[in-house]
């Protein structure tokens, strides 16, 4: 592999492009593959199978060949509503787990640059904030304010847009009340099963960092369950 390919990989990742690096294991020649683009002669006869591996978000050697594919897809987007203490720990854990974090909080004194120096923060109400974020079925939502005015509209948006993971902070009682409000708003009970409430896997911890750990663990587990 040439240094140029390594530099291109770093550049493409920083530009949030999705691509694969393909290597001929016989001679060590590498090339960058972008979906829909032509490859050089050495790789072109494998292009369909390279694209298939890329689409499955997998790495590996193409069957009956010596062509290795390393896929680079964008990280899973995790939208956190509430710039609270737990969010600070969540960001810390997410750094090494290939999650991209976006924080929404209309309360400026919470969502300050001082508290969240390297994070994308949208200082707006969720409905306005979602206009600025591209979301799909590979997006996750974590609501942490337990203020219905802020959390509920975000939960409604995530339910309608079929996010792969939805988690809401709050006790069982808080969650029951939340569910009744969402049913009043027109959601069906079966749809509400998608919400992990109380949020996180059971660790027994109570501190913000322990709650963040239980949330991030549930996110990792749901990522693999949903094959994302």
């Amino acid at each position, binding site marked *: 592999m040439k240094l140029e390919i390594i530099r291109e990989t770093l550049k493409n990742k920083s530009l949030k492009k999705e691509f694969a690096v393909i290597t001929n294991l016989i001679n060590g020649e590498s090339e960058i593959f972008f979906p829909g683009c032509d490859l050089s002669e050495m790789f072109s006869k494998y292009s369909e199978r390279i694209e298939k591996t890329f689409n499955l978000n997998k790495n590996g050697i193409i069957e009956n060949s010596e062509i290795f594919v390393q896929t680079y897809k964008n990280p899973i987007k995790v939208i956190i509503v509430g710039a609270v203490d737990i969010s600070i720990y969540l960001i810390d854990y*997410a750094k090494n787990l290939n999650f991209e974090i976006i924080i929404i909080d209309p309360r400026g004194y919470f969502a300050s640059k001082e508290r969240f120096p390297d994070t994308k923060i949208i200082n707006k109400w969720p409905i306005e904030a979602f206009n600025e974020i591209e979301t799909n079925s590979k997006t996750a939502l974590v609501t942490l304010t337990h203020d219905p005015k802020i959390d509920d509209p975000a939960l409604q948006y995530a339910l309608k847009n079929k996010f792969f993971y939805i988690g809401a902070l709050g006790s069982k009682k808080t969650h029951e009340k939340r569910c009744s409000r969402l049913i009043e708003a027109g959601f069906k009970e079966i749809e509400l099963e998608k919400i992990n409430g109380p949020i996180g896997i059971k660790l027994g911890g109570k501190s913000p960092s322990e709650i963040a750990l239980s949330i991030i663990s549930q996110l990792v587990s749901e990522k693999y369950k949903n094959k994302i």
Partner: protein
Amino acid sequence: MSNFPEKKIFEEADNWIKNNKKVSLATVVQTWGSSPLGIGSRMIVSEDGDFLGSVSGGCVEAKVVEECISLMKNKKICKKIDFNVSNENAWEIGLACGGDISIYIEEIKL
């Protein structure tokens, strides 16, 4: 900001090369059974034996470092190394998990 797994490794490889070091890249290209790290796991090795990243969680790294140094010394382009438990050599290195892995090593060229 989230980091993709190889970010640190690639940035460091670039730094080492800028400092006129020879650097090899080792990549897990195939696994069978219960292997410690997945396909695509990577590590870099300098001609001095410095390394960053991981290809097995500690079982075969020492051997991979040795192989990378010898690859660069002998001016070879690349090599695929198979590690498995039935291989006496691998037993010595201690792939205790019982899995088999193929690791591809190559010098990063300017």
